[in-house]
């Protein structure tokens, strides 16, 4: 047992800090700090800076152009980048599809797609959820019917995050509607979003954003070589993909950055001439969530360390999902409360990518309530927290 960072890890952290100080443009970090919406070019600019340093694919092996960071290095990078208000690295190609292609893809798929992910030549989106297949994902109905060298795809995907920017989608489709188990008739398919028959419609959310979309597929022709792995083996690929999401699932970096913002805001907001941070009740609320976070960080590192030591990635990621999202939701709730009456105005322009109206109230006010509502998604997506509890009781508890 040893909780201290090695000299190598400490040096790495310094390297990351130096890089962020020198390279992360203030224009972008200010947007993140103020909770303004980011646009495609913001993400691409940040990716390009990381690519220049060889850090875009921290989780990939060197053989594929990644940085091959250890679990601790990934954790440290995550903490430093979020603390510096860097945008998130988009996970669709780098974290989700990349590892799937490395494990299940054909040589041709690897050679073609992996460098394109690394270069941001493609913007991938995830085609999983459907209107009738949310928590019960395996009941999905989007069909892919073989027609010579092509699959003909028909159906509808939904909640497609940033799908309006994407030129490619990895999707789960039903290739065998007669399979005895619904999980057994699903395949993993790569779809060109510029194909005829695809229509993307934004879903407007109550916080004023439209980051998610509906994707309609009508007689979309997808070449057979775009099948990943074997036909009808898509469910095991989907499960493998989920295990690769796990290191980030706790959202420790976001939580740490959120807590730091909460403390700044509580020190800045005043009540009866004193900072809100000195209100014993509010201070106790902050203390409680910080204490939960301190423990969750260590739980996260324990899971990551066990996985790095070769132990099978297990349902622990479900525990991290539940606890991590509870903590992040609690923090955004406290930021909303700390903002007081200034959380009431809906200042859409102050959050819009090109907005330039000076906000009413303190600069943290415009995003306080919208981000609170936006973060309700955390316990809904990626397998709702109820699904996670089901996984825990089945696999860890044997109930």
């Amino acid at each position, binding site marked *: *047992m040893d909780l201290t960072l090695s000299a190598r*890890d400490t040096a790495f952290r310094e390297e990351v800090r130096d890089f962020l100080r020198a390279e992360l443009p203030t224009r972008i970090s200010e947007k993140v700090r103020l909770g303004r919406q980011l646009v495609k070019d913001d993400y691409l600019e940040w990716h390009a800076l990381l690519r220049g340093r060889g850090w875009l694919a921290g989780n990939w092996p060197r053989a594929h152009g990644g940085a091959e960071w250890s679990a601790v290095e990934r954790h440290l990078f995550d903490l430093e980048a979020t603390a510096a208000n860097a945008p998130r690295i988009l996970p669709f190609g780098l974290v989700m599809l990349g590892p799937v292609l490395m494990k299940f893809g054909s040589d041709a798929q690897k050679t073609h797609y992996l460098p394109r992910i690394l270069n941001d030549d493609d913007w991938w989106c995830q085609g999983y959820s459907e209107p009738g297949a949310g928590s019960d994902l395996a009941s999905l109905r989007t069909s892919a019917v073989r027609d010579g060298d092509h699959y003909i795809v028909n159906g509808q995907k939904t909640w497609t995050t940033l799908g309006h920017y994407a030129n490619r989608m990895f999707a789960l489709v039903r290739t065998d509607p007669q399979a005895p188990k619904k999980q057994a008739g699903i395949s993993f398919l790569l779809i060109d979003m510029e194909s005829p028959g695809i229509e993307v419609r934004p879903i407007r959310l109550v916080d004023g954003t439209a980051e998610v979309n509906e994707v309609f597929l009508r007689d979309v022709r997808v070449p057979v070589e775009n099948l990943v792995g074997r036909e009808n083996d898509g469910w095991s690929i989907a499960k493998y993909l989920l295990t690769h999401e796990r290191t980030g699932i706790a959202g420790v970096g976001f939580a740490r950055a959120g807590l730091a913002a909460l403390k700044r805001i509580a020190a800045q907001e005043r009540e009866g001439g004193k900072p809100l941070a000195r209100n014993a009740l509010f201070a106790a609320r902050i*203390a409680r969530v910080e*204490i*939960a976070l301190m423990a*969750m960080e260590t*739980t996260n*590192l324990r899971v990551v360390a066990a996985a790095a030591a070769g132990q099978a990635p297990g349902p622990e990621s479900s525990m991290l999902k539940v606890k991590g999202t509870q903590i992040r939701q609690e923090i955004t709730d406290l930021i909303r409360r700390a903002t007081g009456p200034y959380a009431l105005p809906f200042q859409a322009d102050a959050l819009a990518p090109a907005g330039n109206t000076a906000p009413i109230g303190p600069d943290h006010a415009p995003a306080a309530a919208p981000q609170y509502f936006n973060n309700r998604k955390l316990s809904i997506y990626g397998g709702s927290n109820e699904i*996670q509890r089901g996984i825990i009781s089945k696999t860890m*508890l044997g109930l």
Partner: protein
Amino acid sequence: MDFTLSETRAMLADSLRGTLTRGADWAALAELGVPAALFTEAEGGYGGEGFDIALVFEELGRAGAVTPLLDTCILAGGLLAECGADVQVAAILSGESQGAFAHWEPGSRYSPEPMQTAARETDGGWRLTGHKAVVVNAPASDLILCSARLPDERTGLFLVASASSGVELRETPLMGGGDAAEIILDDTPAQLLTSDAASMIEARLARACLAQCAEALGLMQAIRDLTLDYLRTRNQFGQPIGRFQALQHRMADMLIEIEQVRSAVINLAGHLAADRQTREHHVSAAKVLTGEVARLVSEESIQMHGGIGLTEEYALGRHAIRLSLCDHRFGDVDYHLARFSALSHQENQS
């Protein structure tokens, strides 16, 4: 970073677990060398680090064992060792002596400030007058350590022989097992060990909190296992009650929270030797989480069991009582939440 147990510690855990399943009293634990695991080599032991304490007490908790180890070794023994009282420490290591720490006072709950018990110097040495509250393990102790206010307002640490004149013990069994006593000191002769004990006591209590949280973690696991067995075997409505989602999800939440406590215990164990601010932050963090989760685990497990959970014949009730009442020693959830905030505030000021 490394979250694996060293080979020595894994062996200690194994042998301790084996001994505890056979039921072990103080003499048996001393013979096995368990007290020595809680002292450093310089003090005559072979452990004494945070992870040694965590490991021993987690096993004790898992077995639901009621032992004098915390009061004798971590509190009294540790203070004696720091004051260089080698003879008494050797007596503890051999199992000959037991100890207790008389520190808290009536009317001051978890912080004995300002301390009412006063020390007065006479020709023949020091004498103490005051009242110490719920001194755990005092009835069985021949070594009672006692804090008292010195004439110059500093906190002194004294050794009181329990057989000495002018000391009255009102003994009581404890709800969670073991014994304690109210101690009334009336011009009681005592031996001064150190006249500047405040920071020594704080650091010692950090270890006591670690021991207690680790024991609670062990108890939580014992309770989890009992409850899981029950959910798998108790049939109602024609099926094991563990098939009901309402109970499955509550059990999953319990598991998540128990892992949080494990992490808090690891954090505290790993920061016992850190600077004061860092160490004490982890003390209060561990106490808050342990106290909150202790309540969740004991209440939920009893509820999921139903009435059987409160019977004397079944182990759950005893475990749950022991677990719940850990919040009443060394500061409860509210005390440590306020303390955690105050420490954070000091940090911002400095």
